């Protein structure tokens, strides 16, 4: 093999390396700032002493473990609700003929154009009227019937060959059996990819959880992070970097562990 063809120095990999560096630089900066005194946070003096003081200070200023448990519970609940509702809805749109199907589906898609923030006042009224104020369920509910999820699963189900369904039918499977034994397993990569998008979104959600909750017992991680936002005095870069790292660490770890599965899921399902 000639050296010129070596993948190490091809234009493609230089480009990829450059993009990867651009993407990861904010994270690298946060790691640098989180482990240095504020006076060294932006001068990148390699000789500057490393310190755990920021992490310690941030840790003592909010009940992070409670917040972490709440966030995990919240994203799990949202995801479970989304899987249930979007599977059923997506299946109906993909395989059943009924009057007004196209119009209904269009209306579901229209939901994609509405920013959730616009609905905060209305959602607040509904959630508190049904007595779910300051609960994780109340926080999760408005996001369960996700238009994006319905659309995605409908497309995935539509791509499943009819022959598979017919074969299951011959075996005497019911509609539910067909859905669970044929469609859901085939759409597994889509589920995985959608789960990643959903978990990341709700892990980062801030305004709605802040507004619909009162107490530390239900509030998620992002609210702990917001204590360091400091709009009037300006941020303390070291502290907010330490808090940010603490907030994203679990997601980051999960990604590193499940990296292969995630990448495969994205490639096969075609979501970016």
């Amino acid at each position, binding site marked *: 093999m000639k050296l010129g063809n070596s993948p190490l120095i091809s234009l493609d990999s230089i480009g990829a390396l450059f993009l990867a560096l651009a993407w990861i630089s904010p994270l690298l900066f946060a790691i640098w700032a989180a482990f240095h005194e504020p006076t060294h946070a932006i001068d990148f003096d390699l000789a500057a002493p490393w310190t755990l003081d920021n992490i310690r200070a941030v840790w003592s200023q909010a009940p992070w473990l409670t917040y972490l448990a709440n966030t995990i519970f919240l994203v799990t609940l949202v995801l479970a609700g989304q899987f249930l509702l979007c599977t059923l809805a997506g299946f109906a749109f993909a395989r059943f003929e009924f009057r007004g199907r196209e119009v209904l589906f269009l209306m579901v898609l229209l939901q994609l154009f509405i920013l959730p923030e616009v609905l905060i006042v209305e959602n607040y009224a509904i959630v508190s009227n049904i007595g779910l104020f300051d609960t994780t369920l109340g926080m999760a509910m408005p996001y369960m019937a996700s238009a994006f999820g319905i659309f995605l699963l409908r497309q995935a189900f539509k791509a499943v060959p009819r022959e598979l369904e017919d074969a299951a039918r011959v075996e005497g499977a019911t509609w539910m059996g067909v859905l669970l034994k044929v469609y859901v397993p085939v759409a597994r990569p889509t589920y995985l990819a959608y789960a990643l998008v959903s978990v990341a979104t709700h892990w980062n959600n801030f305004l709605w959880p802040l507004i619909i909750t009162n107490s530390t017992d239900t509030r998620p991680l992002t609210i702990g992070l917001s204590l360091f936002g400091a709009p*009037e005095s300006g941020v303390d870069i070291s502290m907010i970097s330490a808090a940010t790292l603490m907030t994203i660490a679990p997601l980051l770890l999960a990604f590193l562990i499940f990296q292969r599965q995630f990448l495969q899921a994205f490639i096969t399902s075609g979501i970016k």
Partner: protein
Amino acid sequence: MKPILNALAAAGTLAATALPGWAETKLTMYYPVAVGGALTEVVDGLIEGFEAENPDISVEAIYAGNYDDTRVRALSAINSGDAPQLSVMFSIDAIDLVDRDLIVAFDDVVESDEDKEWLNSFYPALMRNGQIDGKTYGVPFQRSTIVMYYNKELFAEAGLDPEQPPATWEELVADAKALTKDDQWGIMIPSTGYPYWMFQCFAIQNDKELMNSAGTETYFNDPAVVEALDFWRSLTQEEGVMPEGVIEWGTLRQAFLQGQTAMMWHSTGNLTAVRDGADFDFGVAMLPAHKRAGSPTGGGNFYLFKDSTPEEQAASLKLIQYMTAPERAAKWSMATGYVGISPAAYETEALQDYSADFPAALVARDQLEVAVPELSTFETARVREALNNAIQAVLTGTKSPQDALDEAQSTAERLLKPYQ
């Protein structure tokens, strides 16, 4: 009402032992945190102290994000019918809250002479954003002015007297020139985050307020205001003592702490953080004067919401009086760097000791003498946005001060027309 309650209490002593808290008043209060850190614990501590003194009142104090988040939260709650009784919100929200008929005036709630005296016990400059049509709707809690922080070591290096910060625009330019070197700027004044607030400093120093007190008129293209913006612009473009383009609000403290600039204008809400972070000797000064001295006030006030019972209003008043009492105001000021809100706060032993050791803590108070209210009008967010855009366009060199401010003024006039 009180005598009846007392009679009931006397008659019901037996029942009360069996059913504690039978006459309990429940209050919900929202508060924003604008300066960062574990202030929620300080607030929780204050609330616990209040509940211990008033066993018949229970308070749920809810951290509600920054000022904007708190506003969304309060409006959502009111809209769905479970309104809070009181909240700390941005001092400049008052006009809008009154316009929407959501808050009550403190004048209508205070009854005794003692209460009325309390309402008059604050620095008048801090009251002005909350006073509308002769009534008081906002009581100061976390309030600030803009001050000048300067690096005494860099002053000495440049051959300037570290105890003589610039007191006029001319001195500011001269000192800043002496302080500007290859890797160091003379001064930085932030132009993101709150450009209109910084700009109010220049405007009032040139002896012009940006709006009338009713919030129905703005004077953005008044010759004195145009001149003020031209001076701000000249610091970069003619004098070369401030970096070009916009200067970030949020990271300016960091730049100051690392010696990238010898002076900065920033909120007093930053004082404690600068003190904790500086490894050099720094000074705090009132902003330099031109035709006069001056700075706008900033920060958050207490508001009382409508739709609460007289008992709840009385209990809310009690809570606000507790939170704004001199000892608490002193404690809050030391924890945050905010201004102590009443002269009495500065007479407490705690704040006297603190300021004897750290005189910089008194600068913002001294500046209250010449302070003006923060920009607040009807449609205040959109009016503010128009001014912010004008300022940034001028500082980045895309428009002349006259053109940019003419445009901002005509936008403001269009927005304010329905309210005039």
